[in-house]
């Protein structure tokens, strides 16, 4: 049941015929895992918290650095040196005290990923590296947990929604790992992509609209273009299909 305060807080979205009180209650019951409290994770977490997702578990291993602050809007100058998840917990609770926030400072690994995900129904990919994204992709497939991918570089961002085992997974689309680098990023890019990821999560929970399944959405901020690349489930995918040797 929604409280009187919740009915007022979410009034503008409850007004939407796609949501209503019933939809808002679905959001309240949802349990979302956010992998990363950086640029993508900050935006996704803020909007999911504001929208009234009832239970959010956010995981990140890092502490806040000055060079994070052009894009990681959950963290402020005063948070330098503090763990990102502590900073995230405080801001998200201040934004919406009704949301249950679990903040875990951990590195996501093959050994702990199942326990970290336990009880969560959706995964938001807000990582900054592909190997961990691939771990999340595998876990999503193993547990049939929808996976909401996002990634950024400079003025470019991408988003894709994966509903295992029905739709193309991350590994169907990405087959390699680019060389590690300290990537450049304009702060507005993860803001746009994190919002898209949060929107996809909300649509999925409510069962409304058309999801970015079998679609890699590419955002080119410099030319202000969105392009939807069609992708297919790969029957030979290393993660969701039959194992096949790939060129390195």
């Amino acid at each position, binding site marked *: 049941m929604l409280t009187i305060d919740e009915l007022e807080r979410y009034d503008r979205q409850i007004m939407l015929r796609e949501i209503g009180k019933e939809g808002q209650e679905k959001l309240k019951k949802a349990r979302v895992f956010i992998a990363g409290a950086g640029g993508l994770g900050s935006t996704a977490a803020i909007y999911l918290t504001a929208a009234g997702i009832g239970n959010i578990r956010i995981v990140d291993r890092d502490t806040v650095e000055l060079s994070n602050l052009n894009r990681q809007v959950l963290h402020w100058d005063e948070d330098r040196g503090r763990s990102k998840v502590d900073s995230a917990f405080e801001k998200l609770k201040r934004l919406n005290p009704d949301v249950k926030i679990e903040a875990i400072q951990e590195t996501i690994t093959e050994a702990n990923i199942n326990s970290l995900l336990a009880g969560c129904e959706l995964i938001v990919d807000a990582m900054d590296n592909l190997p961990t994204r691939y771990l999340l992709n595998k876990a999503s497939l193993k547990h049939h947990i929808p996976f909401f991918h996002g990634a950024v570089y400079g003025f470019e961002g991408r988003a894709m929604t994966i509903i295992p085992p029905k739709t193309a997974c991350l590994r169907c689309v990405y087959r390699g790992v*680019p060389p590690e680098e300290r990537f450049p990023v304009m702060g507005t890019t993860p803001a746009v992509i994190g919002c898209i990821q949060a929107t996809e999560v909300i649509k999925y929970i409510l069962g409304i609209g058309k999801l970015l399944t079998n679609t890699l959405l590419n955002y080119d901020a410099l030319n202000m273009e969105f392009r939807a690349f069609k992708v297919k489930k*790969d029957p030979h995918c290393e993660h969701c299909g039959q194992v096949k040797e790939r060129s390195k």
Partner: protein
Amino acid sequence: MGQIIRIHQALRHLTNNQSAVEVDGKTVGKCLAELVERFPGMKPKLFGTNGKLLSYVDIYVNAESSYPEELDKAVNDGDTLSVTIIIAGG
């Protein structure tokens, strides 16, 4: 008429900042060969030493993935190829 190759943002400095290059080929491989001939700096960004596409490069033809045919995928006049590389920032 040929094809248009859209160049990924991170590679445009190798094509004199052109976001699109016109080529004329019958397959993805032939189109990319012309691209690389005109802009040699693109070669190590697209191909490994074995001559195969790097695993983190993807080519889309009219917004559809060229995988698994990739270089052998046939193209038509008027097609648009998009050269993309995997991005991983968060």
